[in-house]
C-alpha cells in the first residue's frame, strides 16, 4: 500500500464503509436482475457525488477537491471491491480532459455539474470490437459554421445514463491517421441522436450511440479542430488508470473471498485450505496482487506528477490489472468448485467483470503493445 496522507486514509475508510453499507455486491446483482438500461443507481451516484468523490479531480474553483489521481484511485479501489456500478471513471476522465483542453466557457458550463453529479459525461471513442482510438471513422463534416456528425459509436461505456458525451470524430484524414481527430461535447438529448443499451454479460449501461447527422456548433468543439489525438490519449489514460484502480479492488476482493472459502470449506476431513497445492496457488496469487498494486500506484503517481513516463506506466497498470484480475476471477470459480459456476454465487459476477474491464479502454494485449512501443521495444 502506498504511504497515504491522512486525508487519503480518511477517503479510503469513507469509501470502504460506503461501498459495504450502501453499495454491496447484492446491490449490483439487483440492478442487473432488474435489467434497467442505465446500469447504475442514480440515487447511489448522487451519494457518491455528495461525498465529493465525483469532484476529486476537478479544480476547487468549480467545486472540486483537486486531490489528484492517487486519491481518485483510493476511492475507486474501494468501489471496485463491491463491484459498484457507477460512471465515476468516465466522468472523472471527462473532467480531467475538460480541465486540460476545454475553453473557459465550456469548463464553466460543465465542470460544476459534473462535480455535483448533476450531469454525467461518457467517452464516445470506440467503434467496434477492438479498442483502437486512431481508427475512428465517425465523420464530422463542416457546413457553414456548424458540424454534422454521422456514424456509430460502440461500445460507449456508461453511455445509457450519460447526459452528454465527449465524442471523438474524424474531421480530416483517414481511419488510422493521428491527425484529423476532433473532440465534440454532444448532449444525449440532441436531435438526430439515438442510443440503445447493449445486452451484455454485464449490465452497466454500455450503449450503442447513433449519430444521424447530429449538429454541433463550434462552441462544443474541445480544443483544436483536427488535433485531438494528444488530449484524447490523455483522457483515455486517465480513464485507464482509474479503471485499473477499480480492477485492483475487485481482484483483491475476489481473492479475499476465495481465501475465506479455503479457510471454511471442509472436505476429506479437513479444511481445503490445508492442502498444499491450494496454499501455493493462493500464495502465488497474493504475490501477483502485490506486484499489480505497485503498477497501479506507479501510474497514479506518474499522472499526479505529470511525468514523461506516465503513458507507459498507465499501460503497464492497465495490462497488469487486466491479466491479474482475469486470473484471480478464474481461480475464484475454480477454487469454489461447482458452486462457483452458479449464477447465485458472486464468483460469476467477478469473472464477467474481469473480462469486461479488461476489454475497456484497451485490453492487456493492447497495453503491452503500447508499453512496448513507448519503451523502445
Amino acid at each position, binding site marked *: *500500500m*502506498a*504511504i497515504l496522507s491522512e486525508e487519503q486514509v480518511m477517503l479510503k475508510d469513507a469509501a470502504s464503509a460506503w461501498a459495504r453499507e450502501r453499495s454491496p455486491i447484492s446491490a449490483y446483482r439487483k440492478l442487473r436482475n432488474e435489467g434497467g438500461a442505465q446500469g447504475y443507481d442514480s440515487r447511489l451516484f448522487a451519494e457518491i457525488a455528495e461525498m465529493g468523490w465525483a469532484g476529486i479531480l476537478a479544480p476547487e474553483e468549480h467545486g472540486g477537491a483537486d486531490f489528484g489521481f492517487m486519491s481518485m484511485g483510493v476511492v475507486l479501489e474501494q468501489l471496485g471491491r463491491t463491484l459498484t456500478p457507477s460512471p465515476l471513471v468516465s466522468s472523472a476522465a471527462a473532467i480531467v480532459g475538460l480541465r486540460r483542453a476545454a475553453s473557459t466557457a465550456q469548463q464553466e458550463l460543465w465542470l460544476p455539474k459534473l462535480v455535483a453529479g448533476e450531469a454525467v459525461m461518457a467517452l464516445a471513442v470506440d467503434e467496434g470490437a477492438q479498442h483502437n482510438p486512431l481508427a475512428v471513422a465517425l465523420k464530422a463534416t463542416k457546413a457553414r459554421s456548424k458540424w454534422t456528425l454521422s456514424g456509430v459509436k460502440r461500445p460507449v461505456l456508461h453511455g445509457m445514463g450519460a447526459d452528454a458525451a465527449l465524442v471523438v470524430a474524424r474531421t480530416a484524414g483517414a481511419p488510422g491517421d493521428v491527425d484529423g481527430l476532433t473532440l465534440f461535447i454532444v448532449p444525449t438529448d440532441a436531435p438526430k441522436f439515438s442510443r440503445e443499451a447493449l445486452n451484455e454479460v454485464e449490465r452497466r449501461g454500455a450503449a450503442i450511440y447513433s449519430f444521424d447527422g447530429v449538429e454541433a456548433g463550434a462552441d462544443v468543439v474541445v480544443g483544436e479542430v483536427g488535433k485531438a489525438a494528444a488530449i484524447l490519449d490523455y483522457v483515455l489514460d486517465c480513464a485507464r488508470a482509474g479503471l485499473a484502480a477499480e480492477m485492483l479492488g475487485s481482484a483483491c476482493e475476489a481473492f479475499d473471498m476465495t*481465501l475465506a472459502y*479455503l*479457510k471454511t470449506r471442509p472436505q476429506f476431513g*479437513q*479444511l481445503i*485450505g*490445508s*492442502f*498444499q497445492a491450494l*496454499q*501455493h496457488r*493462493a*500464495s*502465488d496469487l*497474493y*504475490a501477483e496482487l*502485490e*506486484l*499489480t*498494486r*505497485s*503498477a497501479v*500506484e*506507479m501510474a497514479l503517481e506518474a499522472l499526479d506528477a505529470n511525468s514523461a513516463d506516465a503513458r507507459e506506466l498507465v499501460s*503497464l497498470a492497465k*495490462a*497488469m490489472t487486466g491479466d491479474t484480475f482475469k486470473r484471480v476471477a478464474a481461480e475464484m470459480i475454480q477454487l469454489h468448485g461447482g458452486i462457483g459456476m452458479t449464477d447465485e454465487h458472486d464468483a460469476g459476477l467477478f469473472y464477467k467483470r474481469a473480462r469486461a474491464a479488461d476489454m475497456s479502454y484497451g485490453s492487456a494485449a493492447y497495453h*503491452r503493445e503500447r*508499453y*512496448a*512501443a513507448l*519503451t*523502445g*521495444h
Partner: protein
Amino acid sequence: MFDHADPDLARFRDDAADWIKANFPPALTGKSPTPFITDGALADADQDYQTWLRRVVDKGWGAPTWPEEYGGGGLTQAHSVIIHEEMARIGAFFPNHTYGEMMLGPTLLEYGDEVQKRRFIPPIARAEVRWCQGFSEPGAGSDLASLQTKCVDGGDHWIVTGQKIWTSGANHAHWCFCLVRTDTSSKHGGISFLLIDMKSPGIEARPIYLISGSTHFCEVFFNEVRAPKENMVGGVNKGWPIAKRLLQFERDSLASGRAEAPPLAPLAKEYLGVNELGQIADPDVRHRVVRNAMRARAYAYTMRRTALEAKSNAGVSAAVSALKNLGSDIAQERADLAVEILGHSGLGWEGDQFAEAELEATRAWLHSRAYSIYGGSREIQNNITAKRVLGLPG
C-alpha cells in the same frame, strides 16, 4: 520522487549525489558487487573496491540505518533508499551488503546482549570482519530445523562437531554465525545460535563447484571446535526463533538485491535484428521481453515502496517471502531470455571466442537456477506466505 515534498530529504539527496560522484572509483562503474561479497580474497585484493569500501565506511554509511551507538549511521529507511538510488544512478553499488550487514547485524540488534552488540556490530558496520552463515546441512535443507551439528557443554566453552553446507564465502570468512543442536530430544526447542571464530582449531572449509563455475558456496566441517560461552546468542536452546528472524532478513536482502537489470531490448535488437518499424524482429521474443520488462519495473517499485513502508529493519515481515519469489521468478526469466537472445553465442564457457558480455550472460543463466532455491526455496516461501500472511490452516 517520494522526497519531493520533504526539503530535508531532498537536500540529503543532493548532498549524497555529490558525495557519491566525487568518491566512487570510475573503474567500478557498472560492476556488480556480488563477486566482492562472495569472494573475500577478491575483495581484499581489489584496490578500487577497498578504496570505495573505506570511503563509504568512513562516511558513516557502512550500515546506514543502524543505531549510531553501535557504529551505524543512525539514518532512516528513506535515507537508505536515497543512498542506494543515487549510487545506482551513476552505475555505482553499495559496497557493504555483506552477510554480516544484511543478516547477522539486524538480528543481533534484536537478540544480542549488550556485550555481544558492542563487540560484534561495530566491526560489521566498519567492514572489518567478514561473516559466513552456518545453517544448512546435507540432511537439513528446506527442513532446516532437523539440523544435527552437535554442541555440547565443555565447561567454560561449547564444543561443536558437525557439518554445514552452502556456506557462502566460508573459505575467506573471519567468523561464522552457526545453528547448532544443544538438545537432541526437542527438534525446534533444541537449537542454539552460536558465533564461532573461523580461526578456531578444527574448522575446515571446502569450496563446492557449481554448474555455473562458481565456488563460493562451501562445505564446512567442525571437529570439536571450541567457542566461548558468551558467544551464544539468546541463551541455550533459544536459537530457532532467532534463526527464523534472521531468515526474514535474508529473504529481504535477496528480494531487494535484485537491482533493476538493464533492459534487454537493445540486446534483442542487436542479435535478432529489427523489422521495418524498428521493433525487435522476432515477435515471440519481443512479447516475452516486454512482459519481463513490465514485471521487472513493477517489482523494482514494489521493493522501493516496501522499504519505505517498513519504518526500520523491524518492519521486515513475513510478506517478504512473496517478494523473494517474485524477484527470483523475474530474474530467472530474464536470465533465460538473455541466453535465448544470444543463441549459440550464449553457450560459451570461457576464452576469447566469445565476448565478455556473452560469457557473463551464460554464467548468469547457469547461476540463476539457484535464485529459487537459496534463501529458502520457492516452495518454502509459499508455505510461509500461506501460513503467516494468508493465515491458511494446517
